[in-house]
């Protein structure tokens, strides 16, 4: 080791600033541990309490309301369920504790506070809808792992040419069609690399192509977002609503209630037009909001062509992926009413594993199991709201309020429900918003003499209108991770998209849906 010194023979390491031994005297906390301990020690008192303040507030508010006198017309269990819902909502919005903690607390609360039999609680957690959410996520991982993105992009630009406006429209359309079947987050995760490829092949300096990046990346995310409601497999919120319709309104002894057993095709007939109508709106909005720095992407396209050529012809595994997925979608269309959506999704995943197209380790690492648990517990709590009469009680209050403000007509009712859902879904994930609101909204619809199916669709679709922040939608979170977009970009286009989507929804619910269920 060289220790160059001055004439005064100083050695920096010895004579200047000292490096304190990191873990002296605290051997158990070596390396990572000791500093973590220091950090924890400095946070353990007020700081931790401050970070968890919303958790403490939610617990205090919830338990105080549980101990308060029961209002007229409400049973005590229903009061407890409402308090638990309020606490869960505060925790969803504030994220004071990791989100998977909320379902764990709901499960504990149902057993301890509501005195529900633990086996029944466990049974209520695993419904066909939860299986469907889980199966769809596993399928999503399997599809993303196949790396079909470049081929899809090449197929898009072969059709659209090299003009950025047409490419944007092509990406929005294809991402939308794919997202309608395999979930918005899947397509966003799958197509993000190719979107970034197109941007970086145009310019290496992100500042020079910021608007171009916004157009390409928002084409992906908005394509995914507007299609997420088009079929039941587009997002968890859809599966949750299907589950609620069945739990709340289906009576095996009454054939008239069979319409509440929503199958794949019936859902799509109601909602697919929402996707089709909004497709050109998104394309126009993107162009007018972000004027790209360049409109010719021929340089990027030629490089993409080279990359696709280097991949060679389609491999057997890629064909097999397409085949299995096509079979899964066909089965959803043909057999969802008899086999259930969840079982078909699980079967598709099993096929991917059997043919060795994806490893279980990849599925295990790729699926956020906490979210599955979250939706399972939210559905379970929703069922408790119905069983205890809590939803009915709140619905009566809501109806009273709506009549007071003159929202008695179909249009006014749908407007109020939609605005409420949009407001809530901008503060929490769409699935959680639907899980929290749907029991109340559906019961309110019945009390107001509205069709629960239409009101359910309004709720599920409106929950996808959280466009204002990067955290509002899964597809937004994923493209935001690319680092090309700013939060303000999301607000800039999101506010316009929200207003236009809202208008399209009201038009659809007023003029189209009555034709389907007069």
């Amino acid at each position, binding site marked *: *080791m*060289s*220790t*160059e010194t001055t004439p*005064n023979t*100083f*050695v*920096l*390491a*010895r*004579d*200047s*600033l*000292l*490096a*304190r*031994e*990191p873990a002296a005297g605290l051997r*158990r906390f*070596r*390396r*990572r*541990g000791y*500093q*973590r301990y*220091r*950090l924890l020690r*400095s946070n353990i008192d*007020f*700081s931790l309490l*401050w*970070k968890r303040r919303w958790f403490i507030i939610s617990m205090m508010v919830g338990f105080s309301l549980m101990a308060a006198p029961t209002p007229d017309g409400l049973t005590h269990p229903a009061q407890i369920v409402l308090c638990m819902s309020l606490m869960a909502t505060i925790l969803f919005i504030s994220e004071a504790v990791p*989100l998977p903690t909320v379902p764990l607390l709901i499960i504990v609360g149902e057993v301890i506070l509501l005195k529900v039999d633990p086996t029944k609680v466990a049974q209520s957690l695993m419904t066909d809808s939860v299986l469907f959410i889980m199966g769809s*996520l596993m399928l*999503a991982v399997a599809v*993303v792992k196949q*790396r079909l*993105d470049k081929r899809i992009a090449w197929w898009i630009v072969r059709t659209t040419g090299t003009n950025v406006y047409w490419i944007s429209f092509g990406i929005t359309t294809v991402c939308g069609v794919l997202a309608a079947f395999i*979930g*918005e*987050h899947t397509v966003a*995760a799958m197509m*993000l*690399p190719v979107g970034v490829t197109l941007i*970086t092949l145009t310019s290496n300096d992100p500042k020079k192509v910021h608007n171009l990046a916004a157009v390409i990346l928002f084409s992906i995310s908005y394509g995914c977002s507007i299609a997420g409601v088009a079929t039941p497999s587009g997002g968890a919120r859809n599966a949750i609503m299907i589950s609620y319709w069945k739990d709340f309104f289906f009576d095996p002894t009454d054939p008239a209630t069979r319409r509440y057993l929503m199958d794949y095709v019936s859902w799509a007939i109601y909602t697919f037009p929402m996707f089709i109508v909004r497709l050109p709106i998104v394309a126009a909005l993107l162009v007018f909001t972000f004027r790209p720095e360049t409109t010719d992407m021929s340089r990027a396209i030629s490089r993409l062509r080279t990359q696709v050529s280097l991949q060679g012809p389609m491999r057997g595994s890629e064909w097999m992926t397409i085949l299995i997925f096509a079979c899964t979608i066909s089965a959803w269309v043909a057999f969802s009413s008899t086999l259930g959506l969840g079982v078909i999704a699980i079967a598709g995943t099993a096929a991917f594993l059997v043919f060795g197209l994806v490893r279980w380790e990849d599925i295990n*690492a*790729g*699926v*956020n199991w*906490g*979210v599955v648990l979250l939706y399972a517990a939210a559905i379970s709590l929703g069922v408790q709201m119905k069983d205890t009469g809590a939803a009915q009680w709140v619905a009566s209050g809501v109806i009273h309020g709506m009549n007071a403000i003159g929202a008695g007509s179909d249009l006014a009712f749908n407007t109020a429900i939609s605005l409420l859902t949009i407001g809530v879904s901008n503060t929490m994930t*769409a*699935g959680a918003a639907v899980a929290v609101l749907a029991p109340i909204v559906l019961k309110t619809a019945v009390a107001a003499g509205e069709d629960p199916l239409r009101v359910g669709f309004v709720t599920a679709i409106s929950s996808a209108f959280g466009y204002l922040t990067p955290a509002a*939608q*899964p*597809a937004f*979170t*994923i493209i935001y*991770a690319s*680092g090309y977009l700013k939060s303000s970009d999301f607000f800039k286009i999101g506010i316009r998209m929200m207003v236009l989507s809202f208008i399209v929804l009201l038009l659809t619910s007023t003029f189209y849906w009555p034709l389907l269920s007069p």
Partner: protein
Amino acid sequence: MFDFFKRTQLSDRQEAAVRKTLSNLRSQRRNRFRILACIDGSDESFISVRYAAQMAVTDDCDVIILFVRPIDQGLHSGGLQVRLARQNMMDAGFELPGVKHLKRALEVLKEEGLDAADWPREVENQDAWGDPAGDNKIEYKSPTGRSVVLKLKTAPDVAVGILDQYELGPYNLMIFGQPSRWRSEFKSFFESGVVQSVATIAPCSVLVARPSGDKHGYFICTDGTSRSMQAIRRAAVLAHMTGEPITLFSVAPDEASKPAAEEAVANAKALLKAMKITVADTRVAVGNAVDEIVEMGSLFRFIVVSDEGRSRLQRLFKGSIASEVMKRARSSVLDVR
């Protein structure tokens, strides 16, 4: 039963070997002057890299550039982990966030005369927090033994990541760019930014770097305590080695205390004279310590203060001149520990 309490499954012999290796590595590192420059990609943070290069004047100095990226979390991703999208991006050949900034840091080092790009290098990847990319490190080693390390680390939050990195050190000096916000002691007790959090609880000396313009010199403050004299001694060696002039300074709270402040400065000057370190100037002022240090120190490149060694709780009630100076100064502040 006692196996339950064992920290490792290694045999005693293997465990001893591991400890010996670690101990050797630590002792080697303690013979080196290790500077940790933390960057976040902002222009301000690259000043820390510039200063690290300027302070690493001899071959026993190592420079470690650190970028901490938060763990990819997927709770908003609707069920798919964001890390899946990240993995997809990496498979497609895209860089992790931070790589670009570390490359820029290497360029900054080169501009400052520390051209490590051509030195032999070693690449290391470690699994961290289940992240697909984990922690990544490139170490450039010069033929004379000097190291330049680029470290891309992942952690639950940036402050924890930097403090974790200290554990892999130790380091003689941590350098940060000027933060955009510095909270009061009371507010910081509940929530504080990365630089403030780390500067408050870092075990080693901390430099909050600000643009220097054409300013020069170390403005070393003393209150006459033995802790302060130690700090002067160590900071003066650094100033001497980097060829910067030294000005000694002390503040008296009132006129009656002025002789004591003058004596503190005289003692410090005598101490440095004994070490054959030249003092360019000495100054004494009367008034509020923080105000005077900030005002007079603004003419110098570095203000040097000695840390009082107070815990966060003690700072809440007693305050800290060192952290007040770090907060309000217009020059870079070296907090010596």
